[in-house]
């Protein structure tokens, strides 16, 4: 019972039911531009059978889908199209970035026409590593996304190391030491923050 006397049972049950419904009936829209598109097809087809996890209703219209699976290289020419499609999906919506190209531009395609990861233009919930990821990888991502939906986890933007960070990491400058000390704060299992001692790299 809430303080004003009204019952909170129904709304909380409703939200739980909604979450349950969302996570078990994700309607994906595959945005497969290259190799990953073929693996998306494999995942949907007979051997792997994505319908076991309730995500088999593939919708090619963004207005009917709630999960966008971006698989494949996104070029600078394609970027506005992807952005438009993301905006057309109704809330609540989730995004899986499948494969190295969609997640980071793949490293090997660092050229004049390739976007370095879709998170430069749209937010991403789950990243799947691999080039291309095997179908089990995509299934794992969808199972992970179900957990994300279930636990109401916040979507965190990916933090990429800047050029400066990379340089500092290589030279072990003071700045890097300070950052290392900061990042050494770990969370133990009982939820208490604990500060770890500075790693001693001089010895």
């Amino acid at each position, binding site marked *: 019972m809430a303080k004003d006397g009204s019952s909170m049972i129904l709304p909380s049950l409703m939200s739980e039911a909604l979450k349950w419904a969302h996570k078990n009936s994700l309607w994906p829209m595959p945005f497969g531009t290259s190799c990953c598109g073929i693996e998306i097809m494999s995942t949907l087809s007979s051997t792997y059978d994505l319908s076991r996890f309730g995500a088999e209703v593939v919708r090619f219209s963004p207005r009917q889908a709630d999960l966008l699976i971006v698989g494949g290289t996104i070029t600078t020419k394609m970027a506005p*199209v992807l952005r438009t499609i993301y905006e057309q999906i109704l809330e609540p919506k989730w995004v899986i970035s499948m494969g190295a190209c969609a997640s980071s531009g793949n490293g090997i395609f660092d050229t004049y*026409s390739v976007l370095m990861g879709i998170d430069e233009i749209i937010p991403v919930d789950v990243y799947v590593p691999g080039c291309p990821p095997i179908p089990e990888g995509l299934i794992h991502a969808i199972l992970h996304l179900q957990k994300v939906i279930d636990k109401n986890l916040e979507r965190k933007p990916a933090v990429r190391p800047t050029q400066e960070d990379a340089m500092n990491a290589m030279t072990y400058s003071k700045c890097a030491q300070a950052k290392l000390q900061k990042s050494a704060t770990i969370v133990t299992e009982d939820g208490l923050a604990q500060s770890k001692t500075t790693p001693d790299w001089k010895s």
Partner: protein
Amino acid sequence: MEQSEFVQRQAIATARIHDKYSEDRQLIMDAMNEPILWSTSATDAFNLMKQLQSDELLNFDYLTDITAYDNVDGQDGPKRFVVVYQLFSTKTQTRLRIKLAIDPMETPESLTPLWPGANWLEREVYDMFGVKFKGHPNLRRILMDERFTGFPLRKEYPLKQREQFPDNVPLHLGSHPLAKEERSDEKYLHDFYNPNVLLNIGPAHPAMHGTLRIMCRLNGETIEDAACEIGYLHRGMEKLGENKTYHQWIVYTDRMNYCSALNNNIAYCMTVENLMGISITERCMWVRMILMELSRIIDHIICVAINALDMGAMTVFWLMYYWREEAYTMIESLCGMRLTTTATRVGGMAYDLPEDFIPRLKKFVKEFPSCLVEIHGLLTGNRIWIDRTKNVGKLSKEDALKFSITGPCLRASGIDLDLRRDRPYYAYHQVKFDVVVGSHGDVFERYLVRMEEMRQSVRIIEQCIQRLPGGPIWVDDPRVRIPEKIDVYTKMEVLIHHFKIFMEGINVPPGELYNAVEGPNGELGFYILSKGGPKAWRMRVKAPSFMLFQSFEHSVVGDKIPDAIANLGSLNIIAGELDR
């Protein structure tokens, strides 16, 4: 055809070129002893090709490729660019390369009056190098955005200089973006009886395979005019080819035609080996033939399955994908990856066949034909399938030659051309197989040709298994041989050798070569121009999908929209190799 017979044919053609066409032009030979003819001026090149096209003996009636390279170092004369034309004769199966040196301000004549298929090729040269062609009907950028500045394949263009645009390329019909009042959304779309409804399909449309885009003008449901926009997956592979070593570039070949990556690996390594004059071992040759035919099967599976899926026949997709998974599992056991294999190295293979590969392959070739019988039962006599595919997307023999289409689609149009038989490489002249030829060139025949080619591939694999010899998989050539890991860890010299191969790359002698194989989609060729050292000066990929998609613009006119979907599926256009 025996290889000696082919060499003889090539010699006769070269002699004829030498006698008739090389009076004031320079005739030289490339690394595989194929003729290169330097034309003297921009008009001369056009006239030369016109003569060659109608020469009754040479009969160079097929334009394979147009490309260019940057001559900034001045090795090929004082002019800045060299335009390269690849010609092929369907009569004698010989090749001829014509080169033309030009300055940036010069305009060579467009070849579109001779071969309409030159249209896109010339647009690509313009897009990448800024060479303008005189008399070209529609000289716009093709792979890059219209608003892009700079020409990426010029040597001074930085590899990583990006430009981003806020919106997609607007709707247009071929020549140039339409003015706003002409666009469908404002004026035409709500007018049901208007004979000029503009329709955009793609790039994110389920039947457009991810990245293809067609814009058409409709009268009712009939397509009256169509234009394709490509380049949504242009990743700068050719620029990367100039910036990576020969070994590093193998991984990029996987990602071109990702439905049959093994074929690309092998075709590329074969080109580099031919350029270096390496002949691989007997076992390696037969293993590569097995892998090429296996990848042809899985590529055709995806084409037929997706073509049927686009038209609503889902069962075919489920049935055929089972076999594709079987093939994937085998490939995974070979090299650790399902799609992007990187299985070959220059001079050998990354790994020899695993122990259980051949038994599994035997089981596969024994059981897979039952799947074909099943699909024939589902589709070939099916009234709906026949209605949807017969007389749809027709390409006549003449059109097929004009647009330089290749592979199963060319054979479906009635032209009996298969590089495996006509320009034999590896041991294809030692195995028995039939070349499947159609007569109409419609979607139904393309489907039948693919189905029969799968059966022929099974036949080739059976023969390969029987004749597979033992022995080493690696050629014993210190220039390319990657040392065994056990020796790398124990011997100093081998460690240094290993280090040099991977850190510096293999040293390819100066020279140039165009080498093509019969890929699942058609002629897949690599044109490598080396000026010595571990990196290529120009790495050109002649992708079959490029020419196929160009012909689509024309074969789709007059059909209905659902026919366009059936037509596109039957061409098997793979975006990765279309845009590179």
